């Protein structure tokens, strides 16, 4: 089971955190600090796993961002690398060659996508196309709702004239 997902920039800034196991706010800050110290200092050619508090953290660097997932000792580390890559590819499809700034200003979108990928710390959908389709469908629901509100506002405005 994945206990949490972290996206940390090379400078140690947090770009996304998702917790599937209960950690208090204080513990979360501590975990992030510990792990950035552990991961950001590792050299480029080393393996993508660090052992931490009896758990494993699988991380992978994409451009300036480190994607980290914390798993149990008996989980498949290599598979987690695939899941991380899976997430990155979906982000890439959605934003169109994604960069860190996309994830900063549209952080909620990054969360929506993650929620279509993982629930309860387990993988939900192996098909990138399905994930993109589901997120797009929900986005368009939001758009429709917005248009409706604005048209209603218009109608009210016109009626008031």
């Amino acid at each position: 089971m994945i206990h949490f997902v972290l996206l940390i920039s090379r400078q140690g800034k947090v770009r996304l955190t998702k917790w599937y196991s209960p950690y208090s706010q204080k513990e979360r800050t501590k975990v992030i600090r510990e792990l950035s110290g552990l991961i950001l200092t590792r050299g480029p050619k080393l393996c993508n796993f660090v052992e931490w508090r009896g758990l494993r953290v699988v991380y992978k660097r994409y451009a300036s961002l480190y994607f980290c997932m914390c798993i149990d000792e008996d989980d498949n580390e290599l598979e987690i690398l695939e899941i991380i890559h899976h997430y990155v590819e979906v982000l890439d499809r959605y934003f169109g060659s994604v960069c860190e700034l996309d994830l900063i200003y549209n952080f909620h979108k990054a969360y929506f996508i993650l929620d279509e990928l993982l629930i309860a710390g387990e993988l939900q959908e192996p098909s990138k196309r399905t994930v993109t389709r589901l997120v797009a469908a929900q986005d368009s629901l939001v758009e429709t709702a917005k248009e409706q509100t604005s048209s209603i506002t218009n109608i009210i405005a016109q009626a008031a004239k």
Partner: protein
Amino acid sequence: MIGDMIRAIRACKTAAEERAVVRKECAAIRASINEDDQDYRHRNLAKLMFIQMLGYPTHFGQMECLKLIASAGFPEKRIGYLGLMLLLDERQEVLMLVTNSLKQDLNHSNQYIVGLALCALGNICSAEMARDLAPEVERLLQFRDPNIRKKAALCSIRIIKKVPALAENFINCAASLLKEKHHGVLITGVQLCADLCKVSSEALEYFRKKCTEGLVRTLRDIVNSPYSPEYDISGITDPYLHIRLLKLLRILGQGDADASDRMTDILAQVATKTESNKNAGNAILYECVETIMSIEDDGGLRVLAINILGKFLSNRDNNIRYVALNMLMRATTLDAQAVQRHRATILDCVKDSDASIRKRALDLLYLLVNDNNVKPLIKELIEYLEVSDQEFKGDLTAKICSLVEKFSSEKIWYIDQMLKVLSEAGNFVKDEVWHALIVVISNASDLHGYTVRALYRAFLTSTEQETLVRVAVWCIGEYGDMLVNNVGMLDIEDPITVTECDAVDAVEVAIKRHTSDLTTKAMALIALLKLSSRFPSYSERIKDIIVQNKGNVVLELQQRSIEFNRILQKHPKFRSALVERMPVLDEATFSGRRAGSLPTAISTSSGAPSNLPNGIAKPATAPIPDLLDLSSDDVPAPSSSGGDFLQDLLGVDLSPTPAPSGADMPPKASTDVLLDLLSIGMPLPVQTGLSASDILSSSQDDKAPFVNFNGLASLSSLSANATSPANAAPMMDLLDGRGPGPQKSEENGQAYPSLVAYESSSLRVMFNFSKQRGSPQTTLIQATFTNLSSNVYNDFLFQAAVPKFLQLHLDPASSNTLPASGDGSITQNLKVTNSQHGKKSLVMRVRIAYKTNNKDVLEERQINNFPQNL
């Protein structure tokens, strides 16, 4: 706009600027929340989520999430549920308020809203919510849309983890998910089955009987499936599904020969046919190997699996080597022989540049060491110790020491290896390890000469390793004569000429090293005292070195140097008896002590402060088994400092207590010095009248009350036969057996019943308890002593000792004379601070000494019936 806020925060150059921006934003959001502004609600929440990610408190936004979730529109709900998952977790009570909205949304006609609710429930639901909403989720497992079914499946995992009793409701629906064609549903369904098996043996049996065949078929279909672009990852169709199926098959095959038998064919196919040039393929192979090794024995498959691991181990990809080491660790229990074949490669991995791989490899190698290969492996590891990274040395040293100790069939080999480790990485050696080494050295009487010479040589080449210096100094002090006279020369040794002068030089170097800490210096001081008797002709020079410490800023060194100086000057008669070689340390006692280590801190106080200048609370001695076990860890207890070892060795007190030194003692100075040396802590009235030899003999005749002194006497070698293991035993019990007191605790601990702490035919001790306002950890105890006999007690002295988690402060007693027949009493105040308040009860060992009819009486007792919650 949220974008504006993010830009403003990103523009901040300092943390202080960022805090200011966030504070302003939070104030605006709070104001908006107070106005109950609906239009900005979702924007406020989005901002709060960003602020929360930066690590600022956002609890005031929690209710906004609930309001958004309760609103009708999809956009509001979407952001509301996201906020719920980010700002809250299962432990917040606010979460309960959302149960109703969740229930409605799970029954919503819009499937995306159902999806949102399932996602939130799956990520943060508590046990109560799981119970309330399980029927809804169960129903949704059969929903027409596959996107809802897969979400419901993962949500069910969370539910059965929170409330395992609900598992049986899900078994049937989960089994039907295994027949799905949709990959998302199939993956989550397989995962749900695996988790059901973990919490319910009923589920395990059911799936094993009904589903093994089907799962094997599904795996075969997916392995042989043609290229499908939607699920393809580097040439493999849906590796995630492969992995989950293999995992579930493993659970079903474990412990069941029949089920295992049914899956062997497909496992063999996966193991042989999967492409291993990409990560996805290796992930499948890795999972497959684990399944093969977990299911019931099939020799052929096992060989296949171990071969795959061997290939992994020689892979150039660090990730693959890491998982190989990981898996070989599990394989050692199955087929140690097969793993042994890769020993050389594993040893190379111990020397890898990647810390994660090194650690894995070292752990694995540790399991592979046996009687046959221990010597070459230890040799390799010690050689590697020289060149290894600083941060790895600690781990490596600990493992080497543990192995050397475990496989020490020959003492000389053990001593040799330990000396190598000490010279190479002595600063990483834990206290208990070098303490153990000293015990072994002390027991190897035929190797004393060899050891001291080897240590002397090592000491000459390097004085950088603190523990090497300590052990060397100890041995030179004890066996200095053997060093000089080449006693017990072994054939393998190179001859060495060491003069008495050289030996004294070495110890002088140790005491003058800048880096030497208190313990080392104190040990060197004792070694010098011992050498003064071994080499009488250097007595003057030794005295000079000792005297140089007279002005040491550390009070303890100062005090000891003055005392040792006096011994050298004024008491040549019993000097030689005083510094005789230490009796052989008892290994059994030491190892027993090490196993059930109970560190103690003892503090004592004189009941007669007016007469005794030493009467302030002053840590005395720890019992003998502590000799080699007191780790000098940084426990802030006032009575235990880095000098524990010395403190035990001669019972001297190294902590900077403001106790006047023994030299200041008035009239009976000659015995007082000795008493202090014997570490009695303070001149007890009971001993003041006795000469040194009297103390010794009394300690032999009257063991029970003198347990503490007893051990010390032998330690300082005053009498080689004063201590036997039997004597040591009661000391180990000194603070053992602190069971919870029978007293019931009072509500909130405000009033505690008085306690008759001790009662004998001659004496009664009452304790009255009170608490200081605002500090629940601290208990004030007023002790009242009453004389039940018809004789007056003089020189009355009450002492108490507590374990390390407690701190004890004793105030002076009201008097040191206790009138007869209960005609008056002595009171004394104690202050106890319990660092484990609420977890452990108080416990205390007390000792009462007094004189009656010119006879000394000593009474001791352990008090463990304190009221709880003190």
